[in-house]
Each structure stands twice: as structure tokens, then as C-alpha cells.
């Protein structure tokens, strides 16, 4: 008892340390698997590190992927506070990105850069938000399970974006399935240090946004309502917190944030909407939120970790003989397992206690 009092660490810090240790454990096991595959773990690690941090361009790309995962991770973590599991990040982000591309077409007359960015941001947020709010509404009104409805909304989103990309917003000068390119006022400029990687001030804005969201969810009445609904819907309702309002608002904000992917991809990278630009970033967001244990601030390091793995995946294909990008997916899976296996820690502490008893 005395020992544990001496070593008392704040719960949140402890939880963070556990996540880090879990992630490290997962990575270690992943590297062991390389050995079985016949590749030296040292080489794999070197490739991963070099690929993510090796040059200004590499690091810029890592941050580029990180920015996706911050958004999609938040889109899972926020509804989770109110007890909902949002699997619809993928659909919400495609709709948001399409809306950003639409804003570029509809706002072709805008001349101010700031105004153009604001317009596109609003379009992406609102479109994604509505896409997220629909399952929220169905849950509130009809009790439809959000896991089912958000997944179905992903398919609908894919259909809707295909239509707009192939017909309404199609770029007549292109043979690809993509929308009309944005004018330069709508384009986000990358930092020169990143040597051509499509990443600029946006990553800073996203980090600030995450911190603000953390404070808002923790300290605001709205955040309290979400938490109370997520914890005990009946008790919340008995004391005047209506679950439908919590569900609707958390899903709107989550969808909106997923929709901001439009800024990363459309405004920052390809300057148009391309079908299939997202390689399941919305689903990776579930893993990001899981590794962050639903903690809003934890999304930042977690998204960065997944950014590194995403960036390294391509290089593993090229620079090693025996392993491919699939290894990074194995590592991702092992990291999630490592972080999620809470029971291990209780097991450790019970052994520790027995030894000290």
C-alpha cells in the first residue's frame, strides 16, 4: 500500500504511458515477425524511420498522412463520448472533400484567399456534418443502430460522390474520374521545408483545433452532456439531458471534422476531388481513436504513429526483399492489440503486489 502511494501517478498520465508501452510492445512483436519472414528487424526499422523522417519531403508526407488521421480519429472519438460508435468516417470524409471541391467551382468568382478558404472549410464541415448527423437523427428518432446506419451511409456517400465526379462536377479536360480543378485562391500553400510534400500550416491548425476540442469537451456544458449520455442514458435523461440532442450534436461535429479532410486532400494536395483518394483513412480513424483510448489529446500522438506507418508502408515494398507494405498493417494490428490489452497491466500489477506482499 505504501509503495503504491509513493508511486502515485495521475490516472491520465498512467493511461498514456500504458498506451505507449502497448504500442512499443506491438511494434516489437511486429519486428519479430519480420525475422520469421527472413528480413532483419533492424533493416525494417531503418526503412520505416528513414521513410518517415529521412528528408524534409518524407517528414512532410508523414505529417500529411497524420493530418488525415487526426481528423478521422476525432470523428470516432467525439461520438464515442456520447456512447456512439461512428464507423461512417469514410463516408463523411468523402462527402466533405466533395463539398470542398464543389466550393471551388461554386466560388470561382471569389478573389480573396482567406475568404475562399473559409468558404471551402464551411462547405466541407457542413456537408460532412450533415452526413454524420443523419445516422445521429435516425438513432435519436428511430433507435436505429448507428453502426449499421453509418456503414450504409459510407456506401451511399461513395455513390453520391461518383455521380458528382462523373457528371455534375466533371472536369471536361480530363480522362480521369475527377472534378474541375480549383483556382489558385483556393489552394493551400505547402511549407518550403517539406520540399514539395503537400503540407503547410494546416497541420498546426489541426493540432490547435484538437487542443481546443479537448478543452471544450472536458469543460463545457455540452461536453458534460455528451459524457453523461454516454455513461448512463437513463440517469442523464432523468436529470434533464436529452440523449437525442447529445447524439445529434456529437455526430454532426464528428461528421464535420471528418469532412475537413477536404482541406487536406482537395485544397492542400490534388486541388480537385478524385474518386478513391482515400485509402480507408476513415476506417484507420477507428484504430487511431482506439490507440488514443478515446482521449481527444491522445489523438495527436496516435495519429502521428499511424502517419509514420502509412508513410513507411510504401517504402517497405520498394526497399526490402522479403516483406511488403502488408507488414505495416500487421504492425498496426499488433499495436492496437498491445494498446487494447488492458488486462495485461492488471496481471502485471497483481504479480507485483504478490511479490511485495
Amino acid at each position, binding site marked *: *500500500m505504501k509503495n*503504491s502511494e509513493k508511486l502515485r501517478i495521475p490516472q491520465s498520465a498512467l493511461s498514456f504511458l500504458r498506451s505507449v508501452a502497448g504500442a512499443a510492445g506491438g511494434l516489437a512483436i511486429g519486428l519479430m515477425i519480420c525475422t520469421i519472414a527472413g528480413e532483419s528487424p533492424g533493416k525494417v526499422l531503418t526503412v520505416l524511420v528513414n521513410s518517415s523522417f529521412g528528408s524534409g519531403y518524407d517528414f512532410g508526407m508523414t505529417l500529411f498522412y497524420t493530418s488525415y488521421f487526426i481528423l478521422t480519429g476525432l470523428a470516432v472519438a467525439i461520438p464515442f463520448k456520447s456512447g456512439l460508435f461512428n464507423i461512417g468516417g469514410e463516408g463523411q470524409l468523402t462527402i466533405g472533400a466533395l463539398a470542398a471541391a464543389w466550393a471551388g467551382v461554386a466560388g470561382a468568382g471569389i478573389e480573396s484567399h482567406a475568404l475562399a478558404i473559409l468558404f471551402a472549410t464551411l462547405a466541407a464541415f457542413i456537408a460532412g456534418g450533415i452526413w454524420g448527423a443523419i445516422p445521429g437523427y435516425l438513432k435519436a428518432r428511430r433507435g436505429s443502430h448507428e453502426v449499421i446506419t453509418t456503414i450504409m451511409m459510407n456506401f451511399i456517400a461513395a455513390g453520391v460522390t461518383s455521380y458528382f465526379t462523373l457528371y455534375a462536377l466533371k472536369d471536361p479536360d480530363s480522362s480521369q474520374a475527377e472534378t474541375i480543378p480549383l483556382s489558385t485562391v483556393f489552394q493551400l500553400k505547402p511549407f518550403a521545408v517539406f520540399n514539395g510534400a503537400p503540407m503547410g500550416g494546416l497541420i498546426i491548425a489541426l493540432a490547435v483545433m484538437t487542443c481546443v476540442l479537448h478543452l471544450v469537451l472536458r*469543460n*463545457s*456544458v*455540452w461536453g*458534460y*452532456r455528451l*459524457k*453523461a449520455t454516454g*455513461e*448512463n442514458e*437513463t*440517469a*442523464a*435523461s*432523468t*436529470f*434533464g*439531458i*436529452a440523449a437525442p440532442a447529445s447524439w445529434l450534436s456529437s455526430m454532426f461535429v464528428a461528421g464535420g471534422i471528418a469532412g475537413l479532410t477536404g482541406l487536406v486532400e482537395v485544397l492542400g494536395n490534388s486541388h480537385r476531388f478524385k474518386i478513391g483518394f482515400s485509402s480507408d483513412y476513415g476506417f484507420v480513424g477507428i484504430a487511431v481513436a482506439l490507440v488514443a483510448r478515446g482521449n481527444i489529446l491522445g489523438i495527436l500522438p496516435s495519429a502521428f504513429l499511424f502517419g509514420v506507418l502509412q508513410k513507411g508502408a510504401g517504402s517497405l515494398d520498394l526497399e526490402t526483399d522479403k516483406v511488403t507494405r502488408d507488414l505495416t498493417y500487421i504492425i498496426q494490428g499488433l499495436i492496437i492489440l498491445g494498446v487494447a490489452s488492458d488486462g495485461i497491466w492488471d496481471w502485471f500489477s497483481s504479480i507485483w*503486489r504478490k511479490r511485495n506482499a
Partner: protein
Amino acid sequence: MNAIEFRKVTKKFGGFTANRDLSFTVKKGSIHGLIGENGAGKSTAMKVLFGIHPADSGEILIEDRVVRITNPVHAMRMGIGMVHQHFMLAGPETVLDNIILGHEPGRVFVGRARAEAELRAIAKTYGLDFDRWDRPVSELSVGEQQRVEILKLLYQKSKVLILDEPTAVLTPQEVKDLFGNLVRLKEEGKTIILISHKLKEVLGYCDEITVIRRGETVGSRKASETDDSELARMMVGRDVSFTYQGERKVFANMSDAKPVVRVSRLSITSTTEPLREVSFELKPGEILGVAGVQGNGQSTLLRALSHPSLHAKNWSGEYLLNGRDQSGSDPIVLRNAGVGLVPEDRLSEGLLLNQDMTENFLLGQHEDPRYSKGGFLLRTKARAVTESKIKEFDIRPPYPTVWTGRMSGGNQQKLVIARALDPGPSVLYVAHPTRGVDVGAIEKIHDAIVQERNRGKAILLFSSELDELMDLCDRMLVFYNGGIRAEFARPDFDPWAIGRVMGGGDR
């Protein structure tokens, strides 16, 4: 012969000693009561016996032989069975399948026919009749589910049956049936250990009673040689009174006082427990009791009064609070209008169990200008007030950062009551304030309620404990079939007359 004997059993969890040198004997073929306050270590002792938490030191004897029980399967093989407070049943499965689960008679096939025949014989022997073995358990009443649990133990040929707080979830009629069954089981030679903190029940049906306080045995008494005040003193460690001993302020001109709450011809239809044309007035400085057998409209009345907007569709009638219409209001509006609420079930309706005391204290007050400003919570202040309430109500453990799910029932309830009283409400709706609460805490909660009355608050008290209502109330409404069947006024509370009206008869 002794069925069970504990010799100096000690069980520690980390630095916390749940049982210290616990010693007592349970005679074969008796009903043995194990009583103590919440958290005294009764359940731990039984979990030690059942092999869930093996003891750290000490000996356990079964039929006078020292045994070492390391897991529940082992315990079951030794003839010990346990009915947990929360039943361990698979809802969608049938009664039969639930009973034989893990003990199917056949090797390849289940052998349901054989099992059913055997069960019929058992049920007949012990008088636990069941007409349909193929009904899903989820369709049964709580009392019937409990009977399934008991049958499960009998089917496994348990000789010692442990029942953990078996009456907490039962209606009075079901309680009567349960004890009838237990007496029959005893007559057939079974040994029963009853964990409880209801003194009346253990005194009425047990042969011998062992009292535990803070993990230690205080002593054992024959039921015929003790009484409730001795047991309560043993449990709490000081004298406890079962009736309110403090001052009861007399208000002059009660008949002229303006009512705080006025309900007239309130009906809530299309629910499982409808309310029919209920009218009453609640005045400052009085405690108005709501009595009745569970399910006669009291729950609906409480929900309607505390959350009218939820019943807007089925609402008819008038609900005035200080002269203002409240039909259609939500709980936040009512709170601002001066309503304090202690809901029926603190676990499902009153608390966020994975949150600390401060967060729970804020529930329902999160929009109160004292605790929030500009859409943000004033947590530092809420925490300071929570700390002062912890002192005022003697809530334990006394730290605002403790999760409420880890607190005992009595302390949880004190927090719920402290929260209801915090804004200095003009009217209080209090439901089952002492349900599942031990004697020491009951005294404090009763004191707090009457003191609020003395301060001129209007209190509507819902309870299934007639003794509690008779002790605290100024007037009492008896509900039957969704309506008020009779009204009684202090001091003319005749329990027999009230009981007759509760059953639908006349006074």
C-alpha cells in the same frame, strides 16, 4: 453437526482487509443469517466460501472436515451453491436449459426429457412448482427468476444454499413466498445462509444470526434470544433508533398555507402502469407519503412530476408548481423552479457510476448558474461544494475523486440526496430513500428529510416501506390501480387499515 465452519479466515485485497479472523459456525439444517452494514465483508466471506476469492489464511470446515476450496466449480462439487444478488441467467433461454446448463444429464445429447422428469420430482419435493419449463427466463417475474436460481442449486444437489440479499428486488408478496420456500427447504434438510441487512427478515426466519462489522465477527445470536435493537447495535457499533427521534416542528395555520404543488385530475394513459385522475395538494412544511403495492401508479406519478415532457403525449390534467403550469416541462426547468429529485433507482437513474463524485454532483445542476458560466462548467467550485457536502453528509470514502460505482449503496444514496438538497429546493420528490441502505445510514437520511420539512420544504415521499412512511409522513396517500384510494393523516396511521387499502379493500 455443523454444515459450515469458518475459523479465523482472513482475506485481503491489496492493503485492504475485507475479512479479519472471521469465525462462525452454521448448523446443518438451519437458516443462518449473516448480517452487517454495506461493505462489512459479508459478501466477501461468502465469496471465500464459494471459492471465488480463496482465503489468505484461516480454515474452512464443511461437515466438520477441513477443506480448501479454490474455485466455484470445486465449491459446487462440495455441495455449496450460491444465488447471487444479480441473477446469473441467460434471458432468451428456457427455464429448463438455464437450470441444467453445465450439468446436462446426457453425454452426447442434452437429455432434456430426463432432466425435466428429475426436475419435476425435485420441484415436488420442495414445493417449488413450475408449470412451464419451456418458457424463456426473460418472460418470468423477478420472483420466478429467483426460483429458477434456487432450482438450479437443488438440481446440482447443493446441500448449502447461499442467498445474497435475496429480497432486495422482490415485492412483499414475493418475499413472503420466498421465505415460505426457504422454510420448506430447511425442513427437507438443506442448510441456508442468508446475507441481508434487513433485520426484520433475519429475525423472522433465521435460526441463528451472525453479525459482521468491518470484516470481523461481532458475535452470533439465536434469533429467539435477540432483538432488532441489539442486532443493530452490533452492526453499527452504537445505539441506533429505528424511528425518527429528533424534533418535529409544528407549523401553525397549515390549512391556510398555499400549496407548493397542486395536481388535479392527472391521468397518464397508454403506459404499463397508468395513472388515473390523481388529485392532491402538497404544502410547505409537510411530508406527504405515497404508499401502495409496487405497480399501482406510484412510479408513473413520480416520473410524470419529475419529467412531464416525457409524458406529453399521454398527459391530461393539471400540474401546478407555485401556481405555474408545469405540464410539458423538462427536468432542468423544474430544477430551476425549485424541485429536488431523488429518483427511484439510484444506480440506473441517479448516478454515472464510472465518474467521480464531483461529476455526479453536477448531474442536473450542470446548467445551474452557480456551477456553469457562458456554457462552461465551474468545476473548481463544484468540487469545493462537493467536498463540503461530503463532510455534511458523512459520505465515505471522503474524497470527491472517488468513482461512485465503487461506493457502497448507502453512501451513493447520501450523495444523491445531498445533490437534491443542494439548491435549497422548495419541493422535494424523494423515492425509496433508504432502499438497499444499511441501518446507520438510514438514520442519517431520515434525519435529513425531516430537517428539510422543518425548514418549510414540501416533500413528496415515495416508499415501499410502510414503517418508513408512518414514521416520517404528515399525511399519506395510498395508491391502488392507478388512483388514490385513501388518504391517512398523522397520527392516525393504522398499518392494518393501510394494508387493507393497499390490497384494494376498504379501510
